[in-house]
């Protein structure tokens, strides 16, 4: 390898490294600069089924998500007046301006689902839906359903 070729190669490596670094920094900045996404004032999310007070005779059942005056978009993609569903099970609402936790009490439907099969132990449970934006942060104003109570037998 000639000296000039080596020089050229190392220069191009430096260039690539600089571009990658710039890209990483840009991504980090975007995330940090995030504010809550707006939602239409008349957006409504609700649990289509089960109904409040429902007694369900099986552990595994389908929950249907209702959404009005707003759209669904998978997590990771920002889109005006849209978001994805989160099903809160046996828990109160999380912080309004932070990423919704992801655990057995906070289920994310980031693939754009509008219904889900869940499995619960027998007993009394609460269910509530909360919309989140592309970063899993609730909207402003928050789009949240009534909290319902069901009994699994």
């Amino acid at each position: 390898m000639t000296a000039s070729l080596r020089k050229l190669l190392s220069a191009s490596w430096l260039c690539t490294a600089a571009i990658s670094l710039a890209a990483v920094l840009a991504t980090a900045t975007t995330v940090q600069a995030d504010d809550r996404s707006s939602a239409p004032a008349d957006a409504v999310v609700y649990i289509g089924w089960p109904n409040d007070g429902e007694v369900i005779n099986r552990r595994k059942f389908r929950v249907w998500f209702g959404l009005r005056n707003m759209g669904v978009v998978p997590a990771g993609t920002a889109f005006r007046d849209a978001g994805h569903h989160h099903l809160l099970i046996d828990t109160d609402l999380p912080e309004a301006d932070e990423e919704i936790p992801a655990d057995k009490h906070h289920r994310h439907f980031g693939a754009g689902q509008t219904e889900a099969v869940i499995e619960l132990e027998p007993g009394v449970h609460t269910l509530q839906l909360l919309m989140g934006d592309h970063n899993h942060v609730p909207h402003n104003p928050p789009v949240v359903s009534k909290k319902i109570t069901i009994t699994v037998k």
Partner: protein
Amino acid sequence: MFRFLFPGSSDNADHQSVFDLKRLCSLTLLGALVAVVPVTHAGDTPITDDALVYFIWPKDGAVIKGGKVWVRFGLRNAGIAPAGIDRENTGHHHLLIDTELPPLDEEIPADRNHIHFGKGQSEARIELGPGKHTLQLLFADHLHVPHNPVVKSKQITITVP
């Protein structure tokens, strides 16, 4: 036999039959491919085989007094993404009113019989005049072209008295 199927010059018989055999093979292969492609053609965007769209409401045969109804779109094993957003295993709903399925390998028309829900909606308020009406859901990709395989609901009939 090959020459009967694919007539050609006979002055180099051996060569010719090998050539014909190749042609026959490729034609057979082509035939097999054509046979595999379903009769109803679909677009290019793949979606899981078990994806399903259906009407949560109204039910087939429902009688809707006044003709105003919230139509609720059911979707299983796939997700919603607004039109223009290309994400795996997603699409947006289209409501076909009083019409048969459009060509399934093209962009779905946008008119009063083909309503697009490109903002990612999962339900819609519609108003229908007195009489019998058919409703059908057809899911489509970011470019409004149905998926492969096609994801469509049963066509239902409702009556507005």
